[in-house]
């Protein structure tokens, strides 16, 4: 504050007594936080607690007769035994999709950040723009692209990469492709933000000191892009593992992921205790992986 601050307040503006003013100042942050925090407590935290309770309900109850709270820990065991293949598939598919997304997303983010010059903004728009169209509509478009009568399948059959009655739709390939496509922008954007701040002179210095391009990448580019890489990986992996839209629209029940099972437990079979137990297992598994991953990569300040 400059010396001007010491000039007495002009007449006509009643100055509040300092004590009252400071009291109100101290309360202000809490008042600002209250509505939002209350909303999150009531509609995010409380539901999680309710879900935890529901996962321990007596499974012999039903929605119409009501559930008895019996602390049925066995629900978890039963759910895991019945649906471990879908669990394993969820993590396998999203892991493969993540690897594919990294192979595609890193060069893309790097090219936009370092090589695009005056086309930078245009290319960024090209990454984000597809997300303006409803993702269900876009996922359905893959049904057309991968269709048995489509040009792609025809081409692959002609060059014998695919058998005469081979297909792409309704296969694990289609589901992984859909997952990769749907969540790729979430990986690219944080990665771009990191790479954009990379000073190209560092790479010049590396090459002046006789580092091969590969070595310069491993020792300079990669470490400096780590924050974006970590944030992007998480933003990709978390929704991809919980996704069931791609498996439903592009796959068959043979490709169902854990999300499909949870969806049907709540909305079709109306088996709330099992649906709740599966939801919690999914969340616990994801949180465990995220935690280990963040520990390993040595940073906890991602977002």
């Amino acid at each position, binding site marked *: 504050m*400059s010396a*001007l*601050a010491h000039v007495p307040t002009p007449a006509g*503006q009643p100055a509040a007594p300092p004590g009252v003013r400071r009291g109100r100042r101290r309360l202000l*942050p*809490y008042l*600002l*936080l209250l*509505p*939002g*925090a209350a*909303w*999150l407590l009531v*509609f995010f*935290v409380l*539901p*999680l607690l*309710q*879900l935890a*309770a529901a996962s321990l309900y007596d499974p012999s109850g039903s*929605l119409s007769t009501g559930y008895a709270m019996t602390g049925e820990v066995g629900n978890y065991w039963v759910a895991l035994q019945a649906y471990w293949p879908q669990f394993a598939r969820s993590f396998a598919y999203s892991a493969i999709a993540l690897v594919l997304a990294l192979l*595609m*997303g890193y*060069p*893309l983010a*790097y*090219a936009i950040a370092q090589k695009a010059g005056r086309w930078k903004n245009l290319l960024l728009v*090209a*990454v984000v*723009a*597809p*997300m*303006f*169209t*409803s993702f*269900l*509509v*876009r*996922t359905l*478009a*893959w*049904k*057309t692209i991968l269709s048995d009568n*489509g040009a792609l399948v025809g081409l692959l059959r002609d060059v014998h990469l695919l058998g005469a009655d081979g297909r792409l739709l309704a296969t694990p390939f289609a589901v992984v492709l859909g997952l990769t*496509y749907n969540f*790729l922008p979430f990986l690219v954007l944080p990665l771009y933000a990191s790479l954009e701040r990379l000073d190209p002179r560092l790479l010049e210095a590396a090459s002046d000191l006789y580092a091969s391009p590969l070595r310069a990448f491993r020792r300079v580019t990669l470490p400096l892009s780590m924050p974006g890489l970590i944030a992007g990986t*998480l933003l990709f992996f*978390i929704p991809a593992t*919980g996704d069931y*839209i791609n498996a439903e*629209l592009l796959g068959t029940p043979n490709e169902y992921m854990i*999300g499909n099972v*949870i*969806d049907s437990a*709540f909305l079709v079979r109306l088996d709330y205790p099992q649906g*709740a137990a599966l*939801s919690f297992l*999914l969340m616990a598994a*994801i949180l465990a992986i995220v935690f280990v991953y963040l520990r390993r990569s040595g940073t906890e300040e991602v*977002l």
Partner: protein
Amino acid sequence: MRRWLADRWVMGVALLVLGYLSLPIIVVAGLSFNRPSSRLSYDFNEFTLDNWTHPCATSDMCDALVRSMEIGLIATVVSTILGTLMAFALVRHGFRGRSGINGLIFLPMATPELVMGTSLLALFVAAGVPQGFWTIVIAHVMFCVSFVVVTVKARLAGMDRRLEEAAMDLYASEWQTFRRITLPLVLPGIVAAALLAFSLSFDDFIITNFNAGTTVTFPMYVWGAAQRGIPPQVNVIGTAMFAIALLLVGASSLRGRRARRAALAAPVAAVGAPTSAS
């Protein structure tokens, strides 16, 4: 030759990946001119303009579209207000329990949508709340708030506080300073947050699906139609949304460029009215 390749291959890969990202949009645009051979066919059959001239031929779809916009608008207004207030508290004030609040804001972004959807459903069922329009709004506000906080916070944190101090030094009251200095400077962040919230709400399917009761939003309509046969008008809406968004982006970047050029051409004028820039 080797050098040239080494320099260009990253760009080549990037363009291929961009092609992969834009392929579905191109297909959606193409299918919006398609007259499908049967209800369940996803293949291109015959060119027609009917879908564009009669976008609401299936009235259910347009009802759902309007409902999605209503929900999106309400959820955007509420979540933008709640989130902006929180962002101000986090950046501008010291208080106890900061790490708790940070966790409360971060967790919804790290939780799978599926779990948020099922847990809200469990709560509404246990509390006997009938599901419909307003439970969707509640859910959407819940998952939008965190994204608003993060977006506004970023803008606030990068702001030069000396501008506000200068205003106070010039006898502006706290309210005047906020109204004339702080708010205009944060506004781009708030607008960005609101746009993000609207697009998140408008496009949400998973959480909505668990909390909608019998209310049908646009994504839920598409999901239901995928089982019964998709009307080609869905692709018209998809293409139109894409085109509108592109126009908005184009217009704002054009405006930004013109403002920058004006500032370069007339530095004196720009100095004369420093707050009118941006």
